[in-house]
């Protein structure tokens, strides 16, 4: 096994721009491109809170596929694996501003936070007020629970995106939107696993050892290294181990109701995802935890990484209602209800 260093692209340096053009053209009923940003084809009503996110590319359908009704208003895509700069984020804030304030969501990664902070200052200098930034994290492998705010953002944030998108669409205040973001974040945990690595499409540089075929748990969404589990680990074993760590970190009691997300990190087959899901579901049921909603598919990918992540979000009736609210995005799929 090894990495695919050549992709179906033209000049790799043009890949992000050409991707945005192609993706927007294929989904012109939901989104459009505007100054390098992905915006809703039909803007939100005046006076509503605008929801913006900036992020590195290479994680599609995140976040270009999550712009639309009941989701993001604006996505500012950066270069591959690299957050956009402050100028782009300020443009995004301006584009999302419908007069009801703007929520800038940041998945916790050093570069994303730095650029967002620079952008907030710049927006302030330009007299744009009513911008609130919330930093989001969920990946239990990236820091111990006592330093929870040091954790990085992972696939669990899709729960947060869905819920804040729904409440903003209803016309909630900026404060209420921010409250939901923090509430959903604090109830969400994720953990990833993969075998092998991927190569950066521009530099051609593999992000890990291409000859190491063992399974690793706890990788970052940019291919940052994790802890090796060894070779030939059965899917059921991996699912059980990961779910156990998530449930323990979240202190989920028997009887809890969760949303379960199984993220395809790139090139896993539906066969593998389904087998992994089956194992996770069994482990949750053994612990008396009820899976109320399921999402299985590509959310945040790392190019064609042969990996995945599990995320759980503990639901209550407020969150569940937001989770179930209709939404429309080029890469958005409603969760299965059980």
């Amino acid at each position, binding site marked *: 096994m090894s990495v695919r260093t050549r992709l179906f692209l033209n000049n790799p340096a043009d890949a992000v721009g050409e991707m945005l053009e192609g993706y927007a053209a294929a989904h012109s009923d939901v989104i459009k491109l505007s100054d390098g940003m992905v915006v809703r084809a039909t803007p939100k009503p005046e006076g509503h809170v605008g929801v913006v996110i900036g992020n590195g590319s290479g994680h599609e359908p995140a976040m270009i596929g999550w712009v639309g009704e009941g989701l993001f208003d604006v996505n500012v895509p950066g270069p591959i*694996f690299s957050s956009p700069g402050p100028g782009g984020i300020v443009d995004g804030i301006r584009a999302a501003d419908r007069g009801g304030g703007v929520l800038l969501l940041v998945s916790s990664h*050093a570069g994303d936070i730095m650029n967002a902070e620079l952008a907030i200052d710049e927006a302030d200098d330009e007299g744009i007020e009513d911008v609130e930034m919330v930093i989001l994290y969920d990946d239990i492998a990236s820091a111990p629970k006592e330093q929870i705010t040091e954790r990085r953002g992972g696939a669990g944030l899709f729960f947060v995106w869905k819920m804040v998108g729904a409440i903003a669409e209803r016309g909630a205040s900026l404060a209420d939107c921010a409250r939901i973001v923090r509430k959903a974040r604090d109830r969400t945990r994720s953990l990833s696993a993969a075998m092998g690595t991927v190569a950066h499409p521009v530099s051609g*540089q593999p992000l890990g050892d291409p000859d190491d075929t063992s399974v690793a748990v706890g990788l970052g969404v940019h291919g940052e290294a994790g802890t090796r589990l060894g070779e030939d680990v059965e899917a059921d074993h991996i699912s059980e181990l990961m779910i156990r760590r998530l449930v323990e970190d979240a202190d989920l009691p028997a009887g809890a109701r969760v949303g379960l997300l199984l993220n395809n990190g790139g090139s896993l087959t539906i066969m593998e995802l389904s087998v992994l899901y089956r194992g996770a579901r069994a482990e949750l049921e053994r612990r008396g935890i009820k899976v109320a909603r399921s999402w299985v598919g590509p959310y945040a990918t790392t190019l064609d990484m042969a990996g995945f992540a599990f995320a759980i979000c503990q639901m209550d009736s407020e969150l569940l209602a937001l989770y179930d609210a209709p939404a429309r995005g080029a890469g958005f799929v409603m969760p299965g209800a059980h």
Partner: protein
Amino acid sequence: MLDGDLSRRLVDAARRRVSDHQDELSRLDAVAGDGDHGVNMATALSEAMERIEASDDPTPAEVFRTTGRAFHDAVGGAAGALFGSFFGAIGGQLNRSDNPATPADMVTGMEKGLTRVMRIGKVEPGQKTMVDALTPAVDAARTASGEGASLARILDAAARAARRGALSTTSLEPRAGRARYAAEQSIGSEDPGACTVALIFEAWAEAVESQG
């Protein structure tokens, strides 16, 4: 003295030097990061030079501010924010100085840049980042400037100190940036951002020296 032309040549020298070492920098970043540092730096500096060449007879302040913005726009990420703010701070200081600027103005700009980097990056020296090369470089520049040295001597002192600082990161465990999630892997190899700092100061020292 630092005029617009010399400023432009400093940025161009940095661009050339970093491009030549692009693959090595990406490789260093792949050890525990995401393998794009060389690409990021080369892209930003090329973008900066394109913008600078497109402007008519820019002042030193304009050259450095343009460079800072190019980092912010073209790269993003951690290093885009940090290097962009470093160049931007130099530009901001030169904006308050005469044109041509004095070596002391340049050193004050570098000091401000270091302060910004540490604030934005939330790092101290010793955490295996670009700051471990930038801190000794700025210290050495300040000392040389205090002794009334020429820009050439100042930058030469800074370059030597930056290189020593970059090398010193080899044995450090990362505490900032995404490399910290894979701390063990990274021990034994240099921090890519620190290496870029050394390359830039070395390129500057040579560029100023060669102009006499």
